[in-house]
């Protein structure tokens, strides 16, 4: 699943090194439309529902955080 996630991220923003960055939201690397595209793709691919409440820096700041967040979403 992690590769899928990385694939999705890179397709939206090929210019960002998701393996390295730790402050994707805090440093403004991901724009709001990027976040929307990523989230909606997640929703399509993993059949989860993500809403505005989930858009928090702690869920999206790094690749690990994103994986953890998605895992938790899928589980619930």
């Amino acid at each position: 699943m992690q590769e899928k996630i990385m694939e999705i991220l890179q397709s939206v923003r090929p210019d960002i090194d998701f393996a390295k960055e730790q402050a994707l939201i805090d440093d403004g690397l991901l724009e709001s439309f990027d976040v929307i595209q990523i989230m909606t793709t997640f929703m399509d691919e993993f059949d989860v529902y993500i809403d505005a409440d989930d858009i928090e820096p702690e869920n999206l700041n790094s690749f690990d955080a994103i994986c953890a967040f998605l895992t938790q979403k899928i589980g619930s």
Partner: protein
Amino acid sequence: MELTSYHFLLFILAVLILYYALSRVKGAQRYVIAAANVALICFMTRKTILILIVFLVLFVYFAGLLLDKAVKEKRKALSNLILYGALFFVVAYLCYFKFFKWTYELLQQTLALKGIGLVEWIFPIGLSYYTLTMCAYLLDISHKKHEAERNLIDFFAFVTFFPSLIEGPINLYRKLMPQIKEQHMINPDNLSEGFVRILWGYFKKLVIADRIGVLVIGILSDETAAGPLVFFAMVLYSFQIYADFSGGIDVVMGVARMMDIGLTENFKAPLLSVSVTEYWARWHMSLGEFMEKYIYYPIVLNRRIMKLSKKIKSTYYSKAFSAFLASVIVFVIVGIWHGTGWNYVVYGCYQAFFVGGAVLMGPVYKALLQKLHIQAKNPVWHIFVILRTFTVLTFGRYFIRAKDLTGAFELFARTFTSSAGKQTLLEKGLDVPGLIVMAIGILILIIADILAGNGIRIREKVLHMHILARFAFYMVTIVCIIVFGMYGGEFTGASFIYQGF
């Protein structure tokens, strides 16, 4: 009392002294902040305004507690009722003071005929800012992001936090409240950092912004000014607004820093914006943060809207549709939030056009760049997009510089029709030395943004200089503010000699 007055400086000094004098008394500093909030409201407006503000704060405080209880008891209908009722009240409160001044003036006129005098209308200070804070607070409670605040003093200190009453930033509960609750010990780094930031803020406001302002007024009030000159005045106005707003914010952030409190940054080198979209992530960021969290994402990720957008075949456009819709709504609100009048609505629509347009045209734009072999990282292209964005935004400012929509169209007309006419910058309120100082000021603004964009923060560099160099820097800055600041009325020897005998 204005931000650039001695009274304000004395006020801040008094607050800081009291704040740290009581730093060892547990729980005392929140009272100092609350008292400072009350004092600032009274010094800058009137006691009646204080009553209006306190009333609103109490309302939201109790609404928050009720909402919290309803949410914890999982009573969805009730919590929705409380939430939307409270939000409606808060927004209506703001809208009344923004849009219905005429009802008060009507009342004033009617009573004046009966011989009863009403005080002059004053907009409650900070209302535009803390109403957003209050909405965010209530929404977060209903989404279980945090509990309602039980301590009324803490809540009052947070919601009407005095540095933010003048021009923001828009504070959010989760970021500011924990700091209100902490005990803050006096710390030389905080004092130094705050001091440097305050100096920079006053420099921008008094030396740069107010000086540009004289020239802008001088050009725009001259009926014979040529079109290009009018446009140049609006370019200057862009710099003036930036220096004035960010300068005021720097003073305010510096004051908060001296109190060991960190507020949300509002600016991130906006002069370097490569698109209107990016600009709004660099300018007035606390407003952008609010809009993003509480309007943009909720609209885009709303189930009904997502269902609607699924009807669009293209994968890109099904996502883009809701983003487009949300952007338009956000920017119309941003426009209206900035002021009353149709010109502000148009201002919002203007921004929405470019941001929404960028969303819709995303793939087309990318393809075009590829066809023309333009690399985003190309320095010439980079400068081009910066200037392009700056120009687009400058035209947008026509709508807020003018008093109303008619005035804005007049400004446009003047820019594009009168090519003949005076082109000189002289005799518009600044003499040649004044123009030079202004030019240097604008250059400083630009360089500061370029450096900040490359990760170099001048403030930090200053704080790490050798102490004598630092002292020299402080003295030079203070002397520049004293000498070149636009305050106290113009003085020339000639005017003195020819005054009445």
